[in-house]
């Protein structure tokens, strides 16, 4: 079985991918997008397990609608929602969407990192 990675580890791996030199920047951006989305999903699951058990199993859309109530940070909640949809776009094949750029990825990763820093919400 694959070793489970903590959100922080996923975020670090994603950030380090962006700074490496293999492949193309587009490939590294896409790879980082996968890791960032997994980190975000892990964080959400963590929050729900501590704050509202069971919520981790409802649709992502429903989870994102509920998030501001628990996060108590309107601005961050909004940024997390945007980042989640953007990362999901990058992780699915979508018609006529271009690969996100490295700088877009850094931006969304910063939002995921900010969510990870809300340790009290995560119950840490």
């Amino acid at each position, binding site marked *: 079985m694959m070793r489970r990675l903590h959100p922080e580890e996923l975020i670090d791996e994603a950030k380090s991918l962006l700074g490496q030199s*293999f492949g193309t920047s587009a490939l590294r951006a896409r790879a980082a997008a996968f890791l960032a989305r997994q980190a975000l999903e892990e964080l959400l699951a963590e929050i729900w397990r501590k704050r509202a058990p069971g919520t981790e199993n409802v649709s992502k859309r429903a989870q994102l609608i509920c998030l501001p109530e628990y996060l108590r940070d309107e601005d961050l909640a909004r940024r997390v929602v945007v980042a989640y949809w953007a990362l999901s776009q990058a992780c699915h094949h979508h018609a006529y969407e271009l690969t996100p750029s490295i700088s877009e990825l850094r931006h969304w990763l910063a939002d995921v990192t900010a969510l990870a820093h809300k340790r009290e919400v995560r119950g840490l």
Partner: protein
Amino acid sequence: MSLSESERARRLILLLEQALTFHKYTGDGDCPVCGNPSALDAGWSEDTADSLAVLRRETEASTAFHREVEKVDARVRSLLSVPPAILGEVSDLRIDTTAAQSAWKRWSALGEKPLEVFAIELENRALDLASAVEKIQKEAEERHQALEQDWQAVAEEIRAWLPAARRVLANASRLKLLSTAEKRLNEETQAIRNDRFAPIKDRTFRFWGLLRANSSVDISDLALTGTRTRRKVEIDVAVDGTKAAALGVMSQGELHALALSLFLPRATISDSPFGFLFIDDPVQAMDLARVDGLAQVLADVAQTHQVVVFTHDDRLPGAVRRLRINARVLAVERDRNSVVTVQPRLDPVRQHLADAIALAKTDNLSRDVAARVIPGLCRQAIEAACIEVVRRRRLAAGEAHEDVERLLVDNNNLNHLLALLLMDDPKRVQEAKAKLKKLVHPRAREIFDRCNRGAHDGWDGDFLDIVNDVEMVALRIQEM
């Protein structure tokens, strides 16, 4: 001696002559007229002959005088003309002739007067008339000089103008010839221009036909107008059959399409020295149907020219692939420090697979990371293959672009996508998977499921083997 006196003298002379003749024949005697006794004698005869001679001299002088008077009178009366008509004419010389006219009338009225009055008045009236005429003569002279001066300036201009005017007159026939030649030349120029414009016009109509998509705007005519430096293209446009001004009624996308319809034929005219064409982002504001038209138009132009298109919109490469247009798609990527890389852009399915293989072969990539990323790329490859085939089939069957795109967005889950592809029904997932196994490969269903799951859960095993399996499935789907 007055007239009556001279008449009396004449009669007296006749009487005395007869008395003398009488005396000569009868001799001395009494006077036969008054009876005076012995009045006629030699003495009487002598005295009477003397008196007669005196009388005759006087009478002759008087007759001569009277004849002279008559002659003079006739001459003077002949001068008594009526006022000349010109005095009565109204002229723009603004000379007052009333005094002269009345003096002249008084002068001519003298003719009716008897000689005595005539002789007395003649001089006065003549002097009056002379001074009145002299006065208007002087005025006329002044007017004449003033007019002469005015005329002089004009005359000089006319004199200067005259040689040129004479040349023009002399060359009039040549001018006519030249004018005709110029007119013909313009007509020929216009005809040549129209001839040269005709193929451009035809291609413009054809390109608009491809680019108009669902536009209700019709181009009814296209004409070059204007002359010399003020030339323009006139575009007759009809919206839903009603004539309208093009710019006012067309959307941004339609205007882009119209601009391209006009620009491309012009830029690729056969005598242009340029064998290539650069177009920056022609896809702007175009909907999907129009992008298809654009791809076809560019393919048409590419028959004769190298066409290089820059765009950040992936729909054009998409249309190029779907319409099987022979084009080379390059991806330009900007990395840190503006390091730009240019690489061939594969179709999405092969791009995802190539990315997955590149990651699988990256030695220093942690296995934890690879296990989380590679499955996602594999799933994207299969997604891309499904989407490509669904889109291609449905568009070929005549479905509208926007309907197909909505269907794809509504079924973005890979299972539903597969069911849509194989069963034409997103809900029949299990049947679709069974069909996949039958159509593609005995292990196809297993590979598909692992891909679908693994993207979320991570993956074990040799990545390269798994990617090869996925490649086989994805490429088979793409060929459906």
